[in-house]
């Protein structure tokens, strides 16, 4: 650290005189430790020590004036900043130990990033030697990394074993192999595992995790399952309903877990209605189902529900979220048209590949051809590219917009080449009666979407036009110009052909995973739109089997829903047993989750026998049927109690193409809404609601209670529940009040608010 000019000058002088001794020193180092390669050693150290992480010097703005390429994606850049910036003080061949990079990383001088390695470490030795040897780049001579090999790739470890040593080797282009245990980076996906410097994985408890092993630009995921010993574990042989169960049970057995018991008929009927229709069974429907003696009544119920109009309502809602069906961009008329088109597609069981093809190739007026709203909502090429990849290929590309994707294979070039596929989507805005002249996001009026002849995307890194290519092995778009369409339309037609082809591995997989998620509460790949080698499915063979089934069925959504719901796995109870208590990802029991905003409001109204109102829509419309987000803007009219309820419970604004935009959080605001909010208070006290009718129905107190329980919870009350509620009614001064209190308790029961 030489800040005094005269001293610095002196050092440079003395360095000239001392070149020969430096050379000697370097020679000695090489002799003892072998050559140090910038490409293969120094770059590895920058990653190993965490210097180039996104939170440190890998940040887009660098840190403290020192910026490295993120995770070492750009060695050309890195060698420049190491050797040329700061007048060479960062790496000082004259006095290697005085190099800033060594002083900082070892905290010999203050370092915001703390201690990265010690002076006696291999990291230090490598950097020091490279500096001492004169900061040579060996881009031309260094052997290239061909392959990263990690052993084991998968392991199941049973307690008391709670550790496993990974072995990491590089296969280099000169045919040599190299042990990398001390230089590879280990990223465990879950906090319950830690990995030592040299690759010893330790688990603090039982569970499954992935450890990413990284060296230079390659990474390998390692799947590890740490299993509790359970010496008295006995595998309970349970029958399979279909192939789904076989895959799940096989996995559970290796994990020494038994699946939970099957759910009751009462649980099943509630679950099936909520999952397929988004509403509760009525008391009569629930009773009839439970009383039905037929052995195949569950299958029959599934078939019946799939044909009901509410099924199309509820599953259209899911798609309307993802396709950004909202008023500001699509306008009210567009929102209605698009929703009608989505709902109709589901009602008629349009094969999913066809549904997607229509969206991707839609041209014309967004009023006349509602599918064109797909592009109306996605206004620029990169948004279209990101959304299409995320929605239909389960691939999150966003990272690659600014740098190569850190966890996936996508480069920045891939990103812009893919975006270029969408560059020629054009808009003819026939009219725009936007209410806010300054708001360029707002469109109100007819638009025509058309495939233009011009338009390209520039790759900002190269500054050159990108070359339209499909993601992955898809290759250049020009190779896909088939079907004899107008050449300028080929991009979108070719896109739809390629994307929905059964040969495209990601389309069917990502779509079947999404359906699985909606029914099971968690994707086999989770998050459901984040497929990558480093995020493997929890039960890979099951995802393969479902994918094949789905593709063979000609992308028949009802077919795959039926398959899943008829499995024993879908029909398990949510209550865990001793062996599967901690399982969250292998479907050994049903996963408990809160009802969605619309489901919850509709269910409350159903129980109380009232209707909510949503601004801009006729009274009587259910929340699940609302086509858009908010039909009347907040500043024109205060959102209705129903609108507000939906917002508090996480109805998405539809600004993102991501399932994650729907908030399934629980919050204080929600608790206030459910305890004493305007919606619940009104529906309980409204004259003429179900309570009014019950009170004059001539039913006994116990009869009224029983009716309410079946209506709200799809089950009869227990004797204790009946007793408490009846006692309350009997001693009440105001019987209506007492009945309101019972109903409040039902609507606030966890069993009501949560789907189990």
């Amino acid at each position, binding site marked *: *650290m*030489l*800040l*005094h000019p005269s001293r610095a000058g002196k050092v440079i002088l003395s360095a000239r005189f001392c070149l020969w001794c430096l050379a000697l020193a370097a020679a000695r180092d090489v002799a003892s430790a072998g050559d140090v390669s910038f490409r293969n050693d120094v770059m590895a150290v920058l990653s190993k020590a*965490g210097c180039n*992480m*996104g*939170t*440190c010097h890998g940040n887009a*703005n660098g*840190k403290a004036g020192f910026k490295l390429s993120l995770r070492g994606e750009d060695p050309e850049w890195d060698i420049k900043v190491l050797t040329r910036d700061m007048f060479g003080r960062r790496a000082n061949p004259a006095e290697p130990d005085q190099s800033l990079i060594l*002083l900082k990383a070892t905290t010999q*001088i*203050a*370092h915001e990033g*703390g*201690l*990265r*390695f010690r002076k*006696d470490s291999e*990291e230090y030795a490598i950097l020091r030697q490279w500096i001492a040897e004169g900061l040579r780049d060996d881009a031309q001579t260094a052997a290239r990394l061909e392959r990263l090999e990690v052993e084991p790739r998968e392991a199941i470890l049973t307690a008391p074993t709670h550790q496993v040593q990974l072995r990491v080797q590089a296969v280099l282009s000169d045919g040599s192999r190299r042990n990398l245990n001390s230089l590879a980076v280990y990223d*465990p996906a879950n906090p319950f595992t*830690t*990995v030592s*410097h*040299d690759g010893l994985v330790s688990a603090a408890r039982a569970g499954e995790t992935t450890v990413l092993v990284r060296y230079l630009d390659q990474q390998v995921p390692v799947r590890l399952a740490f299993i509790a010993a359970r010496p008295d574990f006995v595998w309970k042989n349970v029958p399979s309903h279909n192939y789904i169960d076989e895959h799940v049970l096989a996995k559970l057995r290796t994990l020494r877990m038994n699946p939970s018991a099957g759910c009751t008929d009462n649980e099943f009927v509630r679950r099936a209605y909520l999952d397929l229709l988004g509403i509760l069974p009525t008391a009569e429907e629930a009773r009839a189902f439970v009383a039905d003696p037929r052995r195949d009544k569950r299958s029959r119920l599934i078939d019946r529900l799939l044909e009901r109009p509410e099924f199309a309502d509820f599953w259209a809602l899911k798609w309307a979220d993802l396709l950004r069906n909202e008023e500001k961009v699509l306008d009210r008329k567009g929102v209605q048209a698009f929703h009608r088109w989505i709902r109709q597609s589901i009602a008629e069981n349009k094969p999913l590949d066809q549904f997607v093809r229509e969206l991707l190739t839609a041209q014309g007026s967004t009023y006349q051809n509602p599918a064109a709203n797909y592009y109306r909502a996605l206004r620029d090429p990169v948004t279209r590219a990101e959304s299409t990849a995320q929605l239909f290929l389960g691939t999150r590309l966003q990272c690659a917009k600014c740098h190569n994707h850190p966890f996936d294979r996508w480069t920045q070039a891939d990103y812009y080449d893919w975006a270029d596929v969408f560059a020629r989507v054009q808009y003819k805005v026939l009219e725009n009666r936007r209410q*806010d002249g300054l*708001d360029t*996001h707002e469109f109100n009026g007819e638009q025509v979407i058309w495939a233009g002849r011009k338009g390209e995307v520039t790759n900002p890194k190269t500054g050159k036009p990108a070359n339209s290519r499909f993601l992955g092995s898809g290759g250049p778009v020009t190779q896909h110009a088939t079907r004899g369409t107008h050449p300028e339309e080929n991009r979108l037609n070719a896109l739809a052909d390629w994307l929905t082809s059964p040969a495209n591995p990601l389309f069917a997989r990502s779509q079947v995973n999404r359906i699985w998620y909606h029914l099971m509460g968690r994707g086999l790949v989770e998050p459901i739109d984040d497929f990558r080698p480093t995020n493997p499915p929890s039960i890979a063979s099951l995802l393969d089997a479902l994918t094949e089934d789905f593709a063979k069925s000609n992308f028949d959504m009802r077919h795959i829903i039926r398959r899943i719901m008829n499995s024993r796995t879908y029909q398990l109870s*949510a*209550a865990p047993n001793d062996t599967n*208590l901690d399982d969250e990802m292998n479907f050994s029991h049903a996963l*408990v*989750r*809160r009802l969605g905003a619309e489901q919850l409001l509709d269910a409350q109204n159903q129980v109380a026998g009232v209707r909510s109102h949503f601004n801009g829509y006729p009274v009587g419309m259910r929340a699940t049927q609302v086509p858009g987000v908010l039909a009347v803007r907040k*500043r024109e009219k205060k959102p209705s109690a129903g609108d507000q309820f939906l917002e508090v419970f*996480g109805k998405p604004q539809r*600004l*993102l193409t*991501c399932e*994650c935009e729907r*908030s399934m959080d*629980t*919050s204080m605001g*929600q*608790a206030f809404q459910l*305890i*004493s909010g305007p919606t619940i*208070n009104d529906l309980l006290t409204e004259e003429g609601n179900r309570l009014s009718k019950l009170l004059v129905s001539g039913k006994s107190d116990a009869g009224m209670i029983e009716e309410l329980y079946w209506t709200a919870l799809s089950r009869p009350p227990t004797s*204790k*529940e009946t007793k408490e509620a009846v006692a309350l009614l009997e001693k009440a001064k105001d019987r209506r009040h007492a009945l309101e*209190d019972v109903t*409040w*308790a039902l609507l*606030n*029961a*966890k*069993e009501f*608010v*949560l789907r189990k």
Partner: protein
Amino acid sequence: MKDSMSSPNHYSACADFHALRLSRRTLLKVGGMGLLGLTVPNLLRAEAKGKGPKARVKSVIFLFQWGGPSHIDMFDRKPDAPEAYRGPLNGVPTSMPGLHVCEGLERTAKIMDKVTLIRSMHHTMKNHNSAGYYALSGHAPATDDQRLRDSPELFPAYGSVVDKFAPVKDDLPTFVSYPHTIADGSITPGQHASFLGKRHDPFFFTQDPNDSNFSLPELSLPSNLTLERLEQRRELQKIIDRQSRLLDFSATAQGLDAYYEKALAMLNSPRLRTAFDLSAEPAKVREAYGRTTYGQGCLLARRLVETGVKFVTVYFSNNIGGQSTESGGWDTHGFNNTRMYNIIPKYHLPITDQTLPTLLNDLEERGLLESTLVVWMGEFGRTPRINDNASRDHWPQCYTTLLAGAGVKRGFIYGASDKTASYPAENPVRPDDLAATIYYLLGVDPHTEVRAVGDRPVLISDGKPVMGVMA
């Protein structure tokens, strides 16, 4: 070597960031002492071993001046600048030696010995919504978009971050904001928890604290419902919950029930109800704060931090205003034949001069200024050069923020602008740095990593705490 760095802490970012207590300037000065044998490495070796930031502030009152107040008129006056810049308002001396503020702020002048002014705030967002989001979150939006859309991709409000990393327990909310949702055409992002999740949203209301029957629906039951009845309902609910056993095994159920407990505790909380009961305050105090929505809002803020709420945001107005002497924010362009200097002396300055000194004095008298940081700022300043309407337009390139209370210096000016208050001349501070300063003072590491939409690792602040303003 093996243990030189043990994962996974190793991967959790620049953990010891805040250890650095010496500024670069000091470093350079010390560096010059090398000849005396005191080498920088030696000196800093001792400094490098720091701990996490210690909380120096218990609560924050964030007074957001929507529309953009004029720095060159109020707190960064340039009496020697040409007439086209300095404006018609005269200066008045203050209790900070050498500092003048504008006429109309005579009471404020008397408390300037208690405050720190940062005169070198700057950024590049010229539109209200993009600049407002920047000011409220400490993160620059990707583009300077007039109608930036409030989506979960954008960063959360400061209070939401505090709620996530340093929440208040018991029957109190951590983050309270009121009495407006601010918007300029579109709702301004940065007012809620965004990607941190709804559980970290503020306890927010739009009821007017200046209303004679000011009360909150959340804290007051509907007229048909008594607390006794609510307790009875809760008992019935518990009977059903026991039956389903969900609370035995479902974390979701347990989480939801915890919110019931907290919500009911708040409904039952005498101290919270008292805090919101402005009628308990002597009439003299209420008058002193000013009988305005903003004035009573600031009084409420004092009552809330007194009770233990950690982050209180008071919005000056719901819209950018600037064309009325009766309502609205600071956006005085002189449009529609209005004139800035006919408006702010009649509305904005009197309200400010009534409320701000009262709040600081009141906090001090109650010993609360030692634990409470008050932040007064807008989204930008105003053009140093008077425009054709004898008014001023947007100016993010340089503006002033006022800080007072816990953790910051008294009677201090940090940074400086050039001779026309157009650009920072020294120690420039970005909103990112101010955000980092607020987190740092609250004991939250500004470089804490969170996961944004798509699991993207991001830092709660990309800025650097401004150590120079700290006491």
